[in-house]
Structures are given as structure tokens and as C-alpha cells.
């Protein structure tokens, strides 16, 4: 239990840190980055706002996952993780990953049909596969959580 408590505390510190870094990227780094890229390559300048919107959206998805993980950690601390309350947050994580995956698929197809070298499409394909694995893993974990919740509920009805 001590190990679990320490891991939860450390995880919360790093989740907060990660969230802060993502906000920094979202408001300061990303818009400037794409403005700079538009200046460097004027023929690609039309991509500036779509690219900004897409990357900010991905960061937003990551932030949703962080907030949901935080909420789930609160439930872990209160020993209420195996209750109906946790399924909603897990659902939100699954939906955030699914939304990011759908947009990534769109970007991958767009870049794939327009690219003249295989580097970027290959990198996007790697990301797409990784995100698929992550999303399906979350679906499996969700099923396990549901099963554990049912078991816990049954056990609590034992007198």
C-alpha cells in the first residue's frame, strides 16, 4: 500500500508538470512555430491555421487524458476505484484517444497523398499505430475495470 501511495503522489506531481508544459506549448510555442514555418515556406503558408488547429486539438486531447487520470487517481486514493464513478472518467479517456486517433488518421491520409518523400508519412504511420495500441489498451483496461467493479460490488453484498 505504501508503494501504491508513493507512486500515486509521484504520478500526480508529474501529471501536473506535464499539464503545465502542454499549456505552455498550446499558448506560446505552437502558434509561433507555425507562423514561423509559414514565413519560411510561403507556398505552404495555407497550412498555417489548419496545422495550428490540429496540433492544439491534439494537445487538448492529451490534457483531457491527464485530467481524467488525475480524477481516477483521486478515486484510487479514496479506495473507490472499483465503483461506477470511475467508468465515466475511463470513458472520457477512451473518447479523447479516439478523437485524437481520428484526426491523426485524417492528417496521415492528407500527408500520405501529398508527400513527395516517405519520411513524414512513415513517422505519422508510427504515431497512428502507437495511438491505436494505446486506445485499444484503454478499451481492454476498461473491460477489466468493469469486471473488477462487479466483483467488488458482489463482495460488498456478502454479510
Amino acid at each position, binding site marked *: 500500500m505504501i508503494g501504491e501511495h508513493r507512486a500515486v503522489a509521484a504520478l500526480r506531481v508529474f501529471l501536473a508538470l506535464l499539464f503545465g508544459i502542454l499549456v505552455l506549448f498550446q499558448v506560446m510555442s505552437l502558434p509561433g512555430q507555425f507562423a514561423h514555418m509559414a514565413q519560411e515556406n510561403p507556398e505552404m503558408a495555407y497550412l498555417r491555421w489548419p496545422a495550428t488547429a490540429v496540433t492544439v486539438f491534439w494537445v487538448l486531447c492529451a490534457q483531457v487524458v491527464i485530467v481524467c487520470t488525475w480524477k481516477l487517481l483521486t478515486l484510487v486514493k479514496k479506495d473507490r476505484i472499483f465503483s461506477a464513478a470511475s467508468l465515466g472518467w475511463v470513458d472520457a479517456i477512451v473518447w479523447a484517444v479516439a478523437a485524437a486517433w481520428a484526426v491523426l488518421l485524417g492528417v496521415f491520409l492528407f500527408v500520405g497523398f501529398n508527400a513527395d518523400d516517405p519520411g513524414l508519412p512513415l513517422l505519422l504511420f508510427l504515431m497512428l499505430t502507437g495511438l491505436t495500441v494505446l486506445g485499444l489498451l484503454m478499451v481492454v483496461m476498461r473491460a477489466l475495470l468493469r469486471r473488477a467493479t462487479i466483483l467488488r460490488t*458482489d463482495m460488498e*453484498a*456478502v*454479510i
Partner: protein
Amino acid sequence: MPIIVRLDVELARRKMSVGEFAERVGLTPANVAVLKNGRAKAVRFATLDAMCRVLECQPGDLLEWVED
């Protein structure tokens, strides 16, 4: 549930109140109520042991099976 807990019969036989029974067995009065009105889904062997000890009876005196 086709399994009935005959707690009221045994309590009446020993003229024991629900409150005293709950305290001596170590159950909450709420759980005793659940057992008495047949809403219990499962009983631990440890609980059954404590109930039999307090009521000086056998598990068969407390549990009864009836057709649905």
C-alpha cells in the same frame, strides 16, 4: 432467493432481541435486518460460525431451502 434465513425463529426460541444478537455476533443491525427479511445475497462462513455460536445451533437450523 430459494434460500431462506430462519433467523427470527431461532431468535424467538432463545428470546433474544435483534440488538443483542447483532452485538454478540458482531454484525451491524442493518445487516441483521438484511438477513432477517431475506435480502441477503451471501453469508460468510465466519458470520455463520458466529451466529451458530451465539444461538447454539447448527447452520441447518438457520438456513432453509424452498422451491421457487
